[in-house]
């Protein structure tokens, strides 16, 4: 049977990720990886998952979301609490299982947040929807700043704006979580990337995914074809939130201390930059952009103080190069002409 074009495309994406993972493993084993890069491995995995999940909202569902870091923070803190609870109340030794459960917990809570936010947000359109997602992201961060969690024996205690809790404090309001058991592993990060790819790519090539894309392309026509717009927008939004929550849990359990200010508006924007630079709706592009842009500041170390400035200039130039018609035409001409490997659909079919 002839493989379909997007099946091949998806396979390339999976192979690319697996190859990159193997390369990293080889570099780790042979000691070729610098220390700073080693420290970046798990964050890179997290940002890839964040970018892939945000692309589901921005690229596939066509809604601009500026509050994706909010879901990440919900995932991070619920994951941290879950992990501490499992360790404290059940003496769970197995870190892999604990991490898995913490990630699941992060996904569930971020998903709940996604539903709660999605109900009002998805009634709005365009820039108004974007600003409301931004607002929700900020609200989540503010609320996180007021939440206190403690482990009292085998019970989790929660309070709002009241730091005096019995037991060991897990999350201390604006001071965040400290003394977190660092159980995240690069292997798990890789597994999470594969999982999110599996979910997003399979969703896109299914009945539900097609409905989501139809709404993006033309909402009115989609309604006329009997597609429930709210249901499918919600599906994309919540799925994306769940994946971001899982990534958040992985992120939270990778550092010994973490505060809610880590998940500011800037983080949402950072992830959005990955998505746009990688190509809106292009999952593989998101992965590449997230990886490169996370390493880029490291690579720009030679520029020292200028490195964030160079980063900004690179960002602007890339946007101009890829979006300005004159410049794009110029770069097209520079590129060596390839003979087209696969015939266009029309030629291929009629031959």
């Amino acid at each position, binding site marked *: 049977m002839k493989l379909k074009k997007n099946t091949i495309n998806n396979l390339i994406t999976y192979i690319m990720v697996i190859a990159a993972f193997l390369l990293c493993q080889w570099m780790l084993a042979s000691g070729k990886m610098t220390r700073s890069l080693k420290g970046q491995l798990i964050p890179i995995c997290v940002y890839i998952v964040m970018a892939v999940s945000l692309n589901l909202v*921005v690229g596939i569902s066509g809604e*601009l979301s500026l509050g994706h870091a909010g879901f990440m923070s919900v995932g991070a803190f619920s994951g941290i609490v879950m992990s501490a609870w499992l360790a404290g109340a059940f003496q769970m030794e197995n870190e892999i299982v604990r991490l898995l459960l913490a990630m699941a917990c992060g996904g569930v809570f971020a998903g709940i947040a996604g539903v709660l936010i999605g109900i*009002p947000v998805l*009634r*709005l*359109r365009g*820039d*108004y929807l*974007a*600003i*409301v997602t*931004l*607002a*929700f992201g*900020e*609200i989540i961060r*503010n*609320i996180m*700043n*007021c939440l206190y969690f403690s482990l009292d024996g085998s019970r989790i205690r929660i309070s709002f*704006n009241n730091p005096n809790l019995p037991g060991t404090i897990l999350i201390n*309001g*604006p001071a965040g979580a400290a003394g977190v058991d660092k159980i995240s592993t690069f292997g798990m990060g890789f597994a999470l990337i594969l999982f999110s790819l599996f979910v997003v790519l399979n969703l896109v090539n299914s009945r539900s995914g097609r409905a989501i894309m139809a709404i993006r392309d033309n909402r*009115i026509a989609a309604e006329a074809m009997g597609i429930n717009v709210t249901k499918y927008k919600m599906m994309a939004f919540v799925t994306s939130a769940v994946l971001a929550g899982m990534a958040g849990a992985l992120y939270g359990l990778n550092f010994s201390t973490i505060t809610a200010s880590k998940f500011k*508006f800037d983080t949402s*924007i950072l992830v*959005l*930059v990955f998505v*746009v*630079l990688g190509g*809106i709706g292009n999952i593989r592009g998101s992965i590449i952009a997230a990886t490169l842009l996370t390493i880029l500041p490291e690579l720009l170390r030679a520029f020292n*103080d*200028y490195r*964030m*400035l160079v*980063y*900004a*200039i690179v*960002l*602007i130039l890339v*946007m*101009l190069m*890829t*979006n*300005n*018609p*004159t*410049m794009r035409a110029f770069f097209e001409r520079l590129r060596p002409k390839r003979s087209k490997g696969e015939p266009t659909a029309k030629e291929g079919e009629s031959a």
Partner: protein
Amino acid sequence: MVSFLRFFINGISLGSVYAIIALGYTMVYGIAKMLNFAHGDVIMVGAYVSFCAMQYLQLPPALSVLCAMVVCTVLGVIIEGLAYRPLRQAASLAVLITAIGVSYFLQNMALLIWSSNPKVYPSVFSVGAIRLFDGELLITSETLLTIFANIVIMIALTLFTGRTKVGKAMRAVSEDKGAAELMGINVNRTISLTFAIGSALAAIAGVLLCSAYPTLQPTTGSMPGIKAFTAAVFGGIGSIPGAMIGGLLLGVIEILGKAYVSTELGDALVFAVLIIVLLFKPSGLLGKPVHEKV
């Protein structure tokens, strides 16, 4: 009661700053249909320029404001010409990311020039204060000046867009770029002008903001920028009176929320009110509802 009044006046004052920034957002959005995320950072640049003018050149405050306005105007026009104009036909998301890039650029440039150490902005207009209720209610001259500046700018802008030829051209471009061009309006120049006005306002806002909250850092502009943007959406983006009302309401809600509800949740409250308003009026308080033609 007196304390309520004090918070209320502080709210109006902060709201006036938001309103002036929001005017810049709303005008640029109305005409270029883009979210200029770098606007908040232009505020920061304006504040730094006026700071330097006073500190190092020993210029009087009024002249330093003028300096800031000139620098920001030029900056705004350059940003528009270099970064946004080449993307006029591009997808709005691409422009948004470029604006974010410009924002990073300005922040890091400021970091290199002025370092991350906060500068203490001198009180520019301390000519005393009004004392009411036996000195319990203190209205500083900065507060009065901010409110006054806001009113003047509002009136001037309304007259400008309503009465002058250039102002009418701006409105025409924001209605329909193509049609305006056919009527012989130079769209590019009109958009540049809008950026110039918006950036000059940002400079004023920067000075006023730092007179009230004297810590000046490269990131000073970003949060007020986001809030002013929220204010613009709140009032109905594209609408000048909307930006004004949105800004004032936001300022009052923020200060009262911080005073009476919770300091940590003041910002959350602002955003919560925004969400509630948008749910009932999906295009803001004074925004025109958009109908999609089938």
